[in-house]
């Protein structure tokens, strides 16, 4: 009879944990993309763009630098690396300045040059133009520097291929030394490698990165170093860093908490049992979040684990309140109303994170709420059955039962003073999203250097063009060519890139086809203009054939060139999402963003136009913060209502709310004095502090005798000690986000403890007889 009672909840628990564990380990991919933590601006195309850039093939490009040797050795290493990388077949493009296009790709373009050439137009093959072209070819042949490749003389006497290739040159190409790309100071040989797959998938990115390193190790001879960067590579690196950090933090935090619990209760069994609600919470949180969001973000996981780590407080409350005379179950029933109110109010606080504009934050809120509820349920329904009946921790309890019980008006007065201090010097917000990046500064600096050396476009300045069809997007892009070239000429921008540079619209291609003379006409013209020139008869037969073929060739579309060198080149710049086409014009070396914004504000058709992503994101973060603060106010109101329902005492609610408000304002005043820039993660940390603080304050304000108060003080002492230790460790993290959270929470829980202790109502009744506690 006695044994059957604990069995059922234990079995249900076991089944749920086993199922959750399977989902968590097998079905929940880890996502590390930081933009989940950037707001989804409904009123701006920026988020959509960001999303597309993130998913786009731009992330497949790895920027590679080789350094640490004489230029000659670097150039040789660059050639060898490019050759080997190309040979792996995993890269669609490996460019180092030496023959950017393969022979095969060159041939592909050569056969389509009359549809692609930016130089072609009406009258291009008029007799005088033709004669001029031929004379130019002759002059070039005579010149010691034959820039015109004579391989193509017979097929392409008007030099269209050269015009096509000119468009294919990088927007701002790095200088060449020993025939390959070098940084301006000559210290680094530069390469670009575009992987065949990857982009979105950090695992494939990691594999690609490993492959590049392995190939480099294979050609490595004399202490040369390789630096690899790029959006996808950084994502992979973030992932490694986050994983490393999570592991490190988990181990350190677990050890510290274990030591504190062991020291507090001197019982290995209780130490083991204290981990049960925590493990349950993590399994539940990961599996539920994973199911709801198709995976879990690395930061949501790292932060979530620490948020849910507070679940260790629940068994601690139970253990500290155990009495030799009572079993575990009666003890739990004694503290359950308080514990339950703490859990419910904390969870209510986290609802402020749900449904916001940040998917990552919603994920985090879900994670925390699920974890807390699971831990509370486990503590309530499973744990007591596992504690032996006679178990009572051998602790002496806290110091004497008295506490200062500062009067409410004094507390309120102090709060007013702190609020005045806060208003006099409010803390500043952090508006730079890069401050949230988990990557260390030197990695970001290395990326910036490589990007600058390679002249890779800065993705933060864009003109976005939205259209219903690829054709319309290309036509709209073509309309910008003239104005952009003008801007480049006056130095407002250094360069630009767009899909239409490589693939003209069908309209333009058809116009080009119409401008080509028919075979008979061209042949007779050619015969005419060759008069007096030394070219061999019939030399230009291939030219006549190519023009004739081009007149009837099918025009090229993004779909028809998908797998060609052209398709790969335009894919990051022209793409379809949900039926709409987007063409991106990337701008490099933007001097005057405001002028560009004014000039191109409405060039994109509808929601498009000039976008300064960095500015947009900062604006969105500001907007997001305002919304979150609104939500926090609602969360606070909800907490107050729940407290009123649970405590049924205005004075009690005031004591609880005041102690937490004091802790929060003190924390903000300190942050302001230390010149800390607040991020949304500080806000989230403050939510955690609110949850923990509620718990402390509620327990302190529990009606009870002096001896029960001593047990409560012990319980909260252990809670504060473990939480402050765990978050203190987190505060040492290399990840800016975790560091902010750790420091905020560690300070906050100590402040909450202090104010809750000061503000708690005096104990009720006497410590003896204990019968008042018994029913």
């Amino acid at each position, binding site marked *: 009879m006695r044994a059957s009672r604990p069995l059922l909840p234990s079995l249900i628990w076991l089944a749920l944990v086993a199922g959750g564990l399977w989902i968590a380990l097998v079905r929940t991919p880890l996502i590390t993309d930081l933009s989940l933590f950037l707001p989804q601006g409904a009123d701006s195309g920026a988020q959509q763009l960001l999303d597309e850039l993130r998913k786009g093939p731009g992330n497949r490009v790895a920027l590679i630098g080789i350094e640490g040797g004489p230029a000659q050795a670097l150039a040789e290493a660059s050639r060898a690396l490019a050759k080997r990388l190309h040979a792996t077949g995993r890269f669609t493009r490996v460019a180092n300045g030496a023959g950017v296009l393969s022979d095969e790709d060159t041939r592909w373009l050569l056969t389509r040059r009359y549809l692609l050439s930016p130089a072609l137009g009406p009258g291009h093959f008029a007799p005088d133009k033709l004669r001029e072209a031929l004379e130019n070819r002759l*002059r070039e*042949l005579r*010149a010691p*520097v034959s*820039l015109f490749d004579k391989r193509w003389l017979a097929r392409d006497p008007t030099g269209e291929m050269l015009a096509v290739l000119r468009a294919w040159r990088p927007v701002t190409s790095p200088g060449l030394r*020993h*025939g390959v790309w070098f940084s301006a100071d000559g210290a680094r040989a530069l390469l670009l490698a575009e992987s065949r797959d990857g982009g979105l998938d950090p695992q494939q990115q990691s594999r690609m990165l490993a492959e590049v390193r392995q190939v480099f190790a294979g050609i490595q001879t004399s202490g040369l170093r390789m630096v690899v960067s790029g959006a996808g590579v950084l994502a992979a690196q973030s992932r490694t860093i986050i994983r490393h950090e999570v592991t490190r933090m988990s181990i350190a935090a677990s050890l510290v908490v274990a030591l504190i619990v062991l020291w507090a209760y001197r019982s290995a069994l209780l130490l083991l049992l204290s981990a049960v609600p925590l493990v349950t919470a993590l399994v539940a949180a990961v599996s539920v979040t994973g199911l709801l969001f198709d995976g879990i973000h690395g930061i949501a996981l790292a932060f979530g684990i620490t948020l849910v780590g507070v679940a260790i407080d629940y068994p601690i409350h139970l253990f500290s309140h155990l009495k030799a005379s009572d079993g575990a179950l009666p003890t739990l029933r004694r503290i359950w109303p308080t514990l339950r109110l703490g859990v419910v109010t904390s969870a209510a606080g986290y609802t402020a994170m749900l449904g916001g504009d940040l998917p990552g934050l919603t994920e985090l809120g879900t994670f925390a709420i699920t974890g807390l509820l699971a831990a509370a349920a486990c503590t309530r329904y499973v744990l007591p059955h596992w504690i032996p009946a006679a178990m009572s921790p051998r602790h002496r309890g806290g110091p004497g039962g008295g506490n200062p019980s500062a009067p409410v008006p004094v507390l309120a007065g102090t709060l007013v003073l702190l609020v005045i201090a806060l208003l006099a010097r409010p803390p500043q917000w952090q508006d730079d999203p890069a401050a949230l990046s988990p990557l260390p500064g030197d990695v970001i600096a290395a990326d910036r250097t490589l990007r600058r050396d390679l002249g890779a476009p800065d993705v933060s300045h864009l003109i976005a063009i939205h259209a219903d069809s690829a054709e319309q997007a290309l036509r709209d892009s073509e309309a910008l060519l003239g104005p952009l070239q003008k801007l480049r000429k006056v130095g407002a921008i250094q360069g630009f890139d767009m899909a239409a540079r490589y693939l003209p619209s069908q309209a333009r291609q058809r116009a080009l086809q119409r401008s080509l003379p028919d075979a008979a006409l061209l042949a007779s013209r050619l015969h005419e203009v060759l008069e007096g020139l*030394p*070219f*061999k008869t019939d030399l230009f037969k291939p030219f006549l054939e190519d023009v004739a073929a081009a007149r009837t060739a099918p025009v090229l579309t993004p779909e028809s060139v998908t797998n060609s060198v052209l398709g790969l080149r335009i894919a990051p710049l022209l793409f379809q999402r949900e039926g709409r086409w987007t063409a991106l014009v990337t701008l490099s070396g933007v001097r005057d963003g405001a002028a560009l914004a004014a000039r191109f504000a409405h060039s994109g058709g509808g929601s498009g136009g000039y976008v300064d992503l960095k500015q947009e994101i900062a604006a969105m973060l500001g907007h997001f913060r305002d919304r979150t603060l609104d939500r926090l106010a609602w969360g606070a109101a909800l907490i107050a209502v729940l407290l009123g329902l649970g405590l049924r005492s205005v004075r009690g609610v005031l004591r609880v709310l005041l102690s937490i408000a004091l802790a929060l304002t003190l924390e903000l005043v300190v942050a302001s004095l230390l010149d800390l820039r607040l991020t949304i993660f500080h806000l989230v940390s403050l939510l955690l502090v609110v949850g923990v603080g509620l718990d402390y304050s509620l327990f302190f304000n529990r009606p009870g005798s002096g001896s029960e108060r001593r047990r409560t003080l012990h319980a909260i002492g252990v809670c504060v000690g473990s939480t402050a230790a765990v978050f203190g460790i987190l505060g040492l993290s290399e990840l800016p986000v975790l560091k902010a959270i750790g420091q905020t929470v560690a300070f906050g829980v100590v402040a909450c403890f202090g104010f809750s202790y000061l503000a708690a109502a005096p104990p009720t009744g006497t410590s003896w007889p204990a019968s008042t506690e018994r029913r």
Partner: protein
Amino acid sequence: MRHNPRRWLWLLLLLPATVPAASWGLDQLMRDLAAGGAAVVHYTEEKQLAALDIPLTTHGELRFVPPDFLERTVAGPAAERYQVRGNELLIETPEGSHAVRLGDYPPLQAFIESFRASLTGDLDTLRRFYRPDLEGSEAHWRLTLIPRLAEMAAHVKQVVITGDHGSIHRIETVARDGDTTVMRLGTSGD
């Protein structure tokens, strides 16, 4: 006259001293070429191209100022000028002038480096771009250069330079497709 065999024996000792004359080679040729210093020479060039019925000819002047200034002034049929200073090539034609980075055109860079290296006697540079093979004698040598770099080898099969002592008479460039350019150098008119 007394015949003294020992005198002849003594002469034998001199033999090694005559060996350097016999071991005239690439090193010596480079030293001889370098000794030329700054120079201005007249040239004529003839290009035999498969695409054309007749050879293309130009003539003009070449000027070299050590260590790296090279100028080719084309007198006819059209006036043009090519100046190489360091790693930059300045092209001046009747249509206008523009600058080109030598590094952007590996075959061109290799060709110009070979020229400059020959004129300054820089064997190391020469060997970086070519496998040199020297035949003939000091009075009539023939230096065949086979390009090492793939970029250049794709265009140029070989460069053959002939001359005597420290002066170059003729540079023949054979392209991969068989087209041939012959440049003849003579002392300038002055």
